[in-house]
């Protein structure tokens, strides 16, 4: 399989090869790979890739899928223009 | 194999057919073999001929004494799993559900199709019914050879 042609995260264009390389360097939790590859940090906020990444981590670390720690979800679940947030803050005060 | 290909085995199909004498009158053949949560066949039959029962996962059972072959259950079944079959005047008659456009026309010759989707002969369109209450599922009356009584399941238009 050409791992560099398998896209895991469409928003940030991260491939299976990049993820596996990251594992080989010792980063094997979702939070770690997220910080290095930006995987799951695009507009869809990991709705597409999270299960794929969890599955790869499970395979690599040889744990059952339900033992793999899921990534931390922070507000906001989709892109919001900063201007909109600023405007709201102004209107509220 | 129903489980791997979607085609029921002959033996399984035969469990849903009454004998040829009973088939002198039109009867409903319910090809619904698997327990799924569903019962519109039971609730739509005006003659209480189909029983699913309290547990709606039970596959339907037809009481051939009560079934008049009216075909109401045919277009009410969301699985399109019911046909009405009859042996009469050296021909096999069927009522089948149909959801494709354009609709076939009365008198048209069409392919007779078996459960594997293969052409097994010819059939003739006898009647096309599509009333408002049928909610877009047409009921088509079609005739074909008697030998196809256990094989025929639907039609395909010749192009």
């Amino acid at each position: 399989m050409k791992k560099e042609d398998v896209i895991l995260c469409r928003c940030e264009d991260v491939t299976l090869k990049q993820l596996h390389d990251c594992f080989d360097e010792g980063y094997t939790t979702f939070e770690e790979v997220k910080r290095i590859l930006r995987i799951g940090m695009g507009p869809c906020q990991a709705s597409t890739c999270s299960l794929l990444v969890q599955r790869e981590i499970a395979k690599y670390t040889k744990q059952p899928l339900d033992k793999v720690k899921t990534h931390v979800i922070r507000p906001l679940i989709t892109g919001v223009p900063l201007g909109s947030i600023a405007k709201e803050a102004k209107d509220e005060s | 194999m129903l489980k791997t290909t979607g085609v029921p085995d002959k033996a399984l199909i035969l469990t849903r057919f009454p004998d040829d004498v009973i088939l002198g009158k039109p009867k409903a053949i319910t090809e619904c073999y698997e327990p799924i949560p569903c019962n519109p066949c039971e609730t739509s039959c005006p003659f209480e001929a189909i029983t699913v029962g309290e547990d709606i996962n039970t596959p339907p059972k037809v009481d051939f004494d009560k079934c008049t072959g009216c075909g109401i259950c045919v277009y009410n079944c969301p699985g399109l799993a019911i046909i009405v079959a009859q042996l009469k005047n050296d021909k096999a008659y069927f009522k089948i559900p149909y959801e494709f456009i354009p609709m076939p026309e009365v008198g048209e010759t069409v392919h007779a199709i078996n459960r594997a989707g293969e052409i097994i002969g010819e059939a003739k369109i006898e009647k096309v019914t599509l009333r408002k209450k049928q909610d877009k599922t047409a009921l088509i009356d079609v005739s074909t050879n008697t030998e196809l009584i256990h094989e025929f399941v639907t039609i395909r238009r010749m192009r």
Partner: protein
Amino acid sequence: MKHVDLLIIGGGPSGLAAAKMAAESGVSSLIIERDTKVGGQLVKQTHMFFGSEKQYAKTRGINIAEILINDCKEHDDKISYMTETTVVGLYPDYVVTVMDRNHKYSKIKANTILVATGASEKVLAFENNDLPGIYGAGAVQTLMNVHGVLPGQDVVMVGSGNIGLIVSYQLMQAGVNVKRVIEAASVIGGYKVHASKLKRLGVEITTNMTVKSAQGNGALESIVVQKLDDDWQFIPGTEEEISVDALCISVGLSPLSNLLSMVGCEMKYVSALGGNVPVIDHSHETTVPNIFVAGDVCGVEEASSAIVEGYYVGLIIGNRLGKTHPHYERLIQDFTQQLDNLRSGPFGEKTRSGLAQLRGEQHA
């Protein structure tokens, strides 16, 4: 800041059903829906539904949506809507942040919150899986049944669950040639009545097979499929190339539960329920008090059960807010029974074991 009694996130069947029961109990609610109109997945379902008549069996999905929407209209004084508005944040002080179609960002505070966001389609990892022409089955359904656009002429469907089978049938109805349905498991996943219906049309269904790669210059031109053994490993030498201009992926749904993780609800990965789901009690309340869930977000199932769960939770929330439905006891019992009945067969086994796992119970 706007303040409401009950805030419902998601206007699918479960959200609408909950709004109706809450309204009958005397509770006002606000439904926030990111789509242009409410109805959820139902608005693209042109096929007749299963279930019993209580859950509108044999009615087409799109017409069930109509029924639920009209029911809500009868409570116009109690139910209000914000469509084309996405909930982007959910906070422990019961504040949600929303963004509307004009990118206007605002906050709403609620006494109780029902998260009914449904589920999203799972994706598959294979070579060149980002080529144009590769779609999720739900996306194809939206394209075809809502917008009247065909995804292509020659299609292969990956996945033989109900959605894969139903969408294949609808593709054939639209005049698209479904070349094959492939399934990685050794048996067909969905109802056999749907499989038989497709087979009659001449569509091949092949089990123990998956897609290995996609090829094409700028857009999809062909795929390579390969047989799998019972441990889901590729069997060498069984590759087969199929020319297609569209590939439809239907390998399941996973609960859209990210708002719940965000607010700190305890979550659990339960594969029988589709992925990360909130830990709930029998009243469908999460571990964060006054935040409730209903429908696919707490376990991927069917519209029939999503509707009944919605009704059930609507009653509970009414009661919680001190407004008890006049027929509370009877209805709770009725809905509980309906859910049990829907889930009692072999297809409900997954849900039953998943729920038991979620609630930390032993499952027989």
